[in-house]
């Protein structure tokens, strides 16, 4: 159902600045739309995105309804050593998804 796309380089040199690209499939219903009969469509969005490297938080985002559907977030980080990136998305109606990616640093 829900699926994540993660793009992290597989290898890097120590000290390199690398780009991390993430995409989570989600409708991000803003909660301000109506059906043709005038009924309000309830809000259903991802509210928080967190990235941890070997357990330490390195990046976090609060999301609002103004973030487009299928939130695409990219950021940078410095390659300090080999390890594992863990990504977590939390949202309305108990939405919770995780993904991970490994990097080896020379």
């Amino acid at each position, binding site marked *: 159902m829900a699926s994540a796309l993660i793009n992290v380089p597989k290898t890097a040199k120590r000290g390199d600045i690398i780009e991390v690209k993430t995409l989570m499939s989600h409708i991000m219903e803003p909660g301000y739309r109506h059906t043709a009969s005038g009924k309000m469509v309830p809000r259903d969005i991802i509210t928080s995105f967190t990235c941890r490297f070997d357990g330490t938080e390195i990046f976090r*985002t609060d999301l609002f309804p103004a973030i*487009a559907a299928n939130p695409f*977030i990219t*950021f940078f980080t410095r390659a300090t050593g080999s390890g594992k990136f863990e990504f977590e998305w939390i949202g309305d109606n108990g939405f919770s998804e995780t993904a991970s990616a490994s990097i080896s640093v020379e």
Partner: protein
Amino acid sequence: MDQPSDTTRRHFLSLAGSAAVLGAVPIVTLRPAEATPAMLASAIRNVVGEAPIRTGKVKLDVPPLVENGNTVPMTVSVTSPMTPEDHVKSIHVFNEKNPQPNIGNFYLGPHAGRAQVSTRIRLADSQKVVAIARLSDDTFWLASVDVVVTLAACTEEVI
């Protein structure tokens, strides 16, 4: 025979007229209130507090003319050495006329290496988008861009 057809036409016209009025009213009243520049200012104050906000250091990349407000690419970058002594703590993005003034808050630190984030946003109207960066010395820096939107997001009908 002329009399009945005339009455029918008049009757039809008055019905059509009242139907148009009835149809128009809900469309107007169902539109949710837009955020106002005052809401933008108070959302910014919630983050910044009483600290002064200076212009500069922040670069906000949003296309100046947007065809579809449902997905607008946005990149915020901040000029910073990103060292433990001097780095960007967080980036906050706001808008003027969506139903809510907030777009996103991004928290980073010296390990980021480069103070730059990208995402895709929604814009409900032609408006100003504001990005504010909080540096490690707790100073705030601002950049803003005026965007023209052809097709609005957020408040359209669901089909």
